[in-house]
Structures are given as structure tokens and as C-alpha cells.
């Protein structure tokens, strides 16, 4: 009880002093004391303000650093986005060129009905990645899969080309995909002729992505550098599609035919878009009378 009385007394004195100071301040009687106190405090406030300013500056710097770090991250993300965008635009520009060539191909071949397609899978020896989903597990096959199928009107046997030249033919058709047997597959055989001498033969797929021109008559004039085209004989392929260029001729008098090595015009390792020829006028087969 005594302690409570003592504390109450102290409380009353402190409240009284505060009220007296408030009264003196209101009356203007505390001004000299306030000025003196300000001068004294100013001695200590100067350095303290400087230190505080530096500390604030450091904190601001840290904050700015964090902001810069964030800004840097944002800029990096922006650069990455722009790089991707740049790649996409470059790709779109390249695709535009290819598609323009494809349009040019269509205009140059008005008799053909063509269907655009995109390579989604490819396989075979020595092929590199494009937009590849899967490859053929066999090293002995040269085939690829495209993203058009039966529902797009694709049928087995249809020729597949690029604006550069012949790619192969459809060997298997699904509803949404089709498998293309490339010229370089050992199961591939195409009736061909040379552009210069109109020498006819059959271009077959050989090992390791090569082509061979076979069954060329012994007397026929076949030279290195000759351009080989589809002959259109047999009706499987439209005539005049570029196949490749002769790189070596093998001729022996004891053989019935002469052969040649042919370098494909189409780079099979970089195929991305191909054109499936869904309709064309087959070259009529000439019969002996």
C-alpha cells in the first residue's frame, strides 16, 4: 500500500512538471533554454547526421544494387527473349524464302497438285537433327516421317520433293503421319535420265547415303558432272525432277551396262519441309510397235 502511494506521488509530480513545461512553452518562457539545448545538440548532431547519411547511402546503394540486380536479371531475361525472338524471326525469314521457293516450284509446275508437309521424324545413316522427334533405330535404313497422313489425302507411293529436287516416296501412311522412303534407302529405285545426253537408267540407294545410277547402256555417253533427273518412265514420279549429279562413271567393256555414282542434290540431313505430290500427269510409257 505504501509502495502504491509512493508511486502515485511520483506520477503526480511528473505530470505536474510536464504541465508546467507546456505552460512555460506556451507562454514563450522556454525559448532561451530551447536555443541553448539546440546548440549543444548540434555539436553531436552534425557527425551523427553525416554517419546517418552515409549509412542511408549504403542502404540506398544496397537497395539500388538489389534493384540493379533485379534490373540486370530482367535485362538478361529480355535479352534471352529477344534472342529467341531473333532466332524465330530468322527462322521465319528462312522459312519464308523456302516457302517462296515452294510457291515458285508450284508456279513452275502447274500440272502438279502438291501438298505441303513438315518433317517431324527422320532416320538413317549420317542424318543430323532438324525438328526431330524420333529417328529410325536401324542404321541401315534411310527414312523419315512427315506430319501429314491419310486424312490429308496422302497415299502410298506418292512422290515427295523439295524445291531443290526429289526426296523419295511415301512408303507407309498413317492417319496423321506418313513415312517417306528416301532416295538413299537401299529399297529405293527411280527411273532417271541425264539432262545433257538424255541417257536413261535407274537411280538406286546405296550404302551410307549415296546414290548409284545403274542399267545405263554401254554405248550411252555418261560424264562426270551430268545432272540426273527423273525420267517419268513407269509413272511413279513426275518427269524432270532433279536427283543429283554424276561424280564417277564405272564402265567396263565386259559388263552389259555401265554404272555411275551420283551425289544427291537434296541435302537429306537438313530436310525440314517437304512437298508431297498428291497428283500429277504420268509420262505415258512408250511401247514398241
Amino acid at each position, binding site marked *: 500500500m505504501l509502495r502504491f502511494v509512493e508511486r502515485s506521488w511520483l506520477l503526480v509530480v511528473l505530470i505536474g512538471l510536464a504541465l508546467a513545461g507546456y505552460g512555460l512553452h506556451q507562454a514563450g518562457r522556454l525559448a532561451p533554454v530551447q536555443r541553448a539545448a539546440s546548440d549543444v545538440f548540434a555539436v553531436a548532431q552534425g557527425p551523427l547526421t553525416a554517419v546517418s547519411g552515409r549509412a542511408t547511402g549504403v542502404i540506398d546503394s544496397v537497395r539500388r544494387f538489389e534493384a540493379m540486380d533485379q534490373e540486370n536479371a530482367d535485362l538478361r531475361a529480355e535479352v534471352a527473349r529477344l534472342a529467341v525472338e531473333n532466332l524465330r524471326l530468322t527462322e521465319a525469314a528462312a522459312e519464308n524464302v523456302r516457302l517462296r521457293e515452294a510457291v515458285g516450284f508450284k508456279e513452275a509446275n502447274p500440272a502438279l497438285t502438291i501438298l505441303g508437309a513438315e518433317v517431324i521424324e527422320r*532416320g538413317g*545413316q549420317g*542424318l*543430323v*537433327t532438324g525438328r*526431330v522427334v*524420333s*529417328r*529410325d*533405330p*536401324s*542404321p*541401315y*535404313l534411310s*527414312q523419315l*516421317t512427315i506430319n501429314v497422313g491419310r486424312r490429308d489425302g496422302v497415299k502410298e507411293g506418292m512422290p515427295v520433293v523439295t524445291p531443290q529436287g526429289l526426296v523419295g516416296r511415301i*512408303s*507407309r501412311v498413317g492417319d496423321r503421319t506418313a*513415312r517417306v*522412303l528416301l532416295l538413299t*534407302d*537401299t*529399297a529405293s529405285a527411280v527411273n532417271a535420265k541425264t539432262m545433257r545426253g538424255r541417257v536413261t537408267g535407274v537411280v538406286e*540407294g546405296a*550404302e*551410307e547415303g549415296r546414290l548409284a545410277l545403274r542399267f545405263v547402256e554401254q554405248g550411252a555417253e555418261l560424264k562426270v558432272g551430268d545432272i540426273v533427273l527423273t525420267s517419268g518412265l513407269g509413272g511413279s514420279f513426275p518427269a524432270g525432277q532433279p536427283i543429283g549429279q554424276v561424280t564417277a562413271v564405272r564402265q567396263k567393256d565386259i559388263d552389259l551396262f555401265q554404272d555411275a555414282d551420283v551425289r544427291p542434290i537434296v541435302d537429306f540431313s537438313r530436310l525440314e519441309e517437304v512437298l508431297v505430290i498428291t497428283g500429277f500427269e504420268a509420262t505415258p510409257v512408250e511401247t514398241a510397235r
Partner: protein
Amino acid sequence: MSARSRQRGLFATQANMYMAALLLLVATLLHGTLIPMLPWRPDVMLVLVVTWSLLRGLREGLLWAFAGGILLDLLSGGPFGAFTIALLAAALLAGAVHRAAFHVGLLQVGVVALSTFIYEAVYLAALATTEHAASWGLLARNLGPSLLLNILLFIVLSRPLAWLNRKTAAESLEW
């Protein structure tokens, strides 16, 4: 057989089946994606089948060969069944050499080498029965690197496969 041991056996059988499916699927995906990009191709599926045949014997080896072969054939544009037959032939050889205690020795390495040759030869022979020409020259060029890679792969894979064999050895594979 007690109910508990039956349950344990059923669990081991199921684990064995899931493990086989997973390993064979992974091998198939590798054959369809990564491996064709390599300059020399290791036959992951073949090594899996041969190693498992050496570990578990003919019956399971043939089951793995069949399942793995079907998966590869589904992925391939080649004649359906060519991979399956080739793998079955390899599993037949490896399963015949199966011993109760497995270890990586000269015999096992020899089996892998011979299996590689049989696998490639049978596949090409199957290919030759269709319109595809058998690339025997290509086989001759590829066989050396394939043998080396498959033996190395066998040495690498044999330890984890032996561990999996121990973990799932309570029951044989039942499909």
C-alpha cells in the same frame, strides 16, 4: 507356401515386370533419339537383353528380347519383326550360357561379342528378305566399333543389372 511369402513373391513379380517395361522403354527411346546421333551406335537393347539372359536364363531373356524387339520394330520403318528375331537369336545364345553365379568374365564378354555379331547378321538377313539390300559392307565397317561399345556397355551395365536381379529375384518374370 504361406500367405506372406506368396504376397512377397507377387510383389517381386510385379516389380520385375515394371522394371523390365521401364528399362526396355528407356532403351527404345534411346535408340529412337540419342543413339542415332552418335558416330558409332552402341546396341543398348541388345546389351540389356544379353545381360539379363546371362543373369536370369533363357526364359526371361527371350521374354525381354521379344518385348524389346517389338518396341524397336514399332519404332522402325524396316520390316516388322527384324529386330525381334535378331534379339531373340542373341538371347538364345546368352540364355544357353546362363550360370547360377553371374560374374563379368571372359566367357560373358565373349557371349556379348558373339551376340553382337549374331544380332547384326540376323537383322541384316531379315532386311535382305525384303526389298532392302543387305549392307554387308556397312556391317563389316560397323561391327568392330559396335563390338567394342557393346562390351564396354556390358561391363558398365552388368553391375546395376545384377543388383536389380538380386532385388527382383524372388519370382521369375510372368507376363
